[in-house]
């Protein structure tokens, strides 16, 4: 017995020594991360329909902490919604660590456990990503494996449940993606080829139990796609076709029609000139791991909006939201830079950019077959349905002198509010937008930017004017004031000035910004995914930091 007691400290010592022996390899890694804290104090304002908020002030926040050490990486993200700010999904409640992962990359085989983001092809079949501005996060909680099986052959597999706010989706998502870069795969045999050829295919299946006593629902819904990409010195041609089997869901009103999606993108680039063109057709291609989910919850795939992503506020007043139930859309863009010293280029050169995009509904025939096959409708693939959206935008970037440059934008926008916002009885809204964005470097420490915008329309809320003044002081401060004025509203009481002021201080990778003012209600979109932001009136604060 005494011998045993004697052995315990020896054994413990050995254990401790073992731990310390491993520490150097653990301690050799790096920790980095970033934090963001947003808060707002809300005043009720009946004039702009800003609701009363019982808590008065609301806050969102998060912190990412990532540890890397050689081939190993691990991380967590803490999030808080106390309570969730206006305009974000109310299902974000409380605090937690919904994102955590560990990855090890061992000789071309990378395995991730926990949360992961990834994409197959263009995302038509599978894309998990995060867009904090939308409150969108469909990270996959499970396992992801990436294998570079041999030169030119890339295989990915995923298996897990999607994040749904602070829980996970009831459905399980399984998927595999393979991609072959033929040039790398065949090595020297293709050395004479001036183009790169890449082909790929992906398959995803979701499982969700059928508990519906009235319908026989498919528990396993498969979706697959094929893609090809040809890249030359000046051209990049990418095409993908995807198919989904019967997937009755809330989004398609529980019809059993298979879904299809096709995307073709061509870009051309040479010095001073860039041209791109893209076309897509989507037919019943919403794909979620919870067939009963709505909004931004549990979306498995990504359907890009082929429209210009405007950054100016009035140009982005009527943004387009992808219609998963069906649309045909296209976009072309030409960018050209006039050389310095030419008539149009002037002393510093001039760049112009012309963009045209449009989206139409499908030409469909309703089948009224609820009692039989529930296919819902048939599609005439060679015809267009109702117009959903159109945007023609011309942008000119011009440097007038060493301390003065500007951007001019004109945009003509057509917007189907009934389809995009789910409203009834609106005509097609048409608007003309003009923007002047001017930047003056006053001296070494002061830069002044003014942004003057005007939206002319006889529809909806009528015309708007916007003026922004922003002064950057040295390397640490900025002050801005903005007024959005709905002067064209038919109702005199609704001709409101939405005035907003901001002050920001930043140093290194830290930033503190406070503001006060009114924010109009509107639709906020990123990449065709949108959320409605209600009007608000009050203080706001943002603090960010990274290390």
């Amino acid at each position, binding site marked *: 017995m005494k011998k045993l007691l004697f052995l315990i400290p020896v054994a413990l010592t050995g254990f401790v020594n073992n731990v310390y022996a491993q520490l150097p390899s653990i301690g050799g890694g790096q920790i980095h991360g970033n934090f963001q804290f947003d808060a707002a104090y809300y005043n009720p304002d009946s004039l702009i*329909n800003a609701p009363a908020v*019982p808590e008065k002030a609301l806050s969102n926040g998060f912190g990412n902490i990532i540890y890397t050490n050689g081939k190993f990486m691990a991380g967590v993200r803490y999030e808080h919604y106390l309570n969730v700010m206006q305009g974000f*999904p*109310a*299902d974000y*409640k*409380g605090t937690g660590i919904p994102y955590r992962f560990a990855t090890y990359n061992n000789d071309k085989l990378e395995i991730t456990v926990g949360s992961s983001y990834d994409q197959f092809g263009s995302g038509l079949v599978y894309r998990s990503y995060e867009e904090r501005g939308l409150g969108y996060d469909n990270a996959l909680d499970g396992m992801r494996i990436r294998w570079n099986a041999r030169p030119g*052959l890339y295989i990915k597999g995923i298996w897990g449940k999607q994040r749904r*706010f*602070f*829980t996970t989706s009831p459905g399980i998502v*399984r998927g*595999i993606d*393979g991609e072959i870069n033929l040039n790398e*795969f*065949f090595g020297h045999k293709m050395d004479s080829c001036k183009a790169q050829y890449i082909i790929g295919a992906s*398959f995803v*299946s979701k*499982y969700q139990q*059928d*508990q*519906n*006593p*009235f*319908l*026989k*629902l*498919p*528990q*396993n*819904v*498969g979706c*697959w796609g094929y893609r090809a990409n040809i890249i030359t010195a000046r051209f990049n041609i990418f095409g993908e076709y995807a198919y989904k*089997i*019967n997937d*009755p*869901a*809330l989004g398609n*009103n*529980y019809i*059993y029609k298979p879904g299809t999606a096709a995307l073709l993108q061509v870009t051309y680039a040479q010095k001073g000139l860039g041209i791109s063109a893209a076309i897509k057709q989507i037919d019943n291609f919403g794909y979620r791991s919870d*067939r*009963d*989910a*709505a*909004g931004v919850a549990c979306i498995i795939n990504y359907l890009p909006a082929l429209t210009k992503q405007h950054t100016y506020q009035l140009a982005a007043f009527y943004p387009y939201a992808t219609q998963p139930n069906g649309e045909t859309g296209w976009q072309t863009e030409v960018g050209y830079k006039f050389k310095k010293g030419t008539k149009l280029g002037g002393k510093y050169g001039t760049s112009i950019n012309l963009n045209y995009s449009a989206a139409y509904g499908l030409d469909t025939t309703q089948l009224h077959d609820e*009692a*039989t*096959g*529930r296919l819902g409708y048939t599609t005439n693939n060679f015809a267009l349905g109702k117009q959903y959206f159109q945007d023609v935008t011309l942008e000119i970037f011009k440097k007038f002198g060493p301390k003065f440059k500007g951007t001019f934008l004109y945009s003509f926008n057509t917007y189907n509010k*009934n389809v995009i916002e*789910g*409203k*009834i*009885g*609106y*005509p097609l809204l048409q608007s003309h937008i003009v923007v002047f964005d001017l930047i003056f470097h006053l001296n070494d420490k002061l830069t002044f930017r003014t942004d003057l915008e005007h939206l002319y329309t006889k529809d909806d809320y009528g015309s708007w004017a916007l003026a922004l003044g922003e002064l950057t002081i040295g390397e640490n401060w900025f002050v801005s004031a903005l007024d959005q004025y709905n002067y064209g509203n038919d109702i005199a009481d609704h001709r409101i000035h939405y005035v907003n002021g901001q002050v920001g201080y930043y140093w290194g990778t830290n930033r503190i910004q406070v503001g006060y003012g009114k924010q109009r209600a509107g639709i906020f979109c990123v990449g065709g995914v949108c959320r409605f932001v209600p009007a608000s009136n009050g203080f706001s604060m943002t603090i960010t930091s990274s290390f």
Partner: protein
Amino acid sequence: MKFNRLIIPAVIVCAFSFSMCDYIVDPNEVATVGPVFDTTKRVALIEEWTGHTCIACPAAAADIEQLEAAYGQSFVAISIHDDFFAEPCPSPHPTPNCAIGVPGAFAEDFRCATGASYSASHVSGPQSPPQGMVNRLGMQSNTEVKGRGTWPGLVDSLVQEDACTSIHIDHQYNTSNRQLGVTVRGTWLQSYTGTINIAIMLTESGMVGWQTNGTSCDSEFVFENVLRECLNTPGDIAGTQLTTGTTPVGNVWSYTLPSAYTIPNAFDPAGCTMVAILYDTTTGEVLQAWKEEVQ
């Protein structure tokens, strides 16, 4: 040659993948559902948010009608008209364009203080109707508000579960002074530990009014199960404590409204229904429910 080596694994992957697909030929090929009422089983309660300018809400109303037909007395529905989509037009909610210029279109206001209490307690409920709760399942994980597609499955599952109590409503309605007296009673069938509250809601059906429906406006939509009031705690869904601790199996319980409720003249007693709800105050889950028409 290198491609040849890939063919066999590719075929295996494809075969495995495509086997993970369920092709449905006849979607309506399901077991017959019929009234399965049994006093020892749970009653399923749907509390749904709706509104007359919500374009997808008529589909949810049709779902509820289908459930009522299938499950009879084992199913109870309450339609909560609250928040943005339930606001009357033209103010504060702008009249939908399909009815602009039509006098009185969308002027109905089915909102009530009890509906606002529902929304305050379940904030995601009114955000994007139609959404609803089925016996308030999932409150502890903040997932009690569910899309309409989940309702039939949950209802079907609930009505097959044993209830902790039987439940019945006795009432007296005086047509001359419109006073309504209510007593809810039952017998504990299972030992249940917790604090149970009772809330008695009043709903009304049969009102005709305007409703957006898909891409059009329906001027003769019939509104059913519209929440009007909580009878024992007006304007508040909390209700009254019925019991706490462990329920004594076999014992009879009852709850009587402290004072009679006078049905307002704006409500038609012939369309009114009382809904008694027993719920666990800790989990939030509705344990049992019952409905009884006033007339």
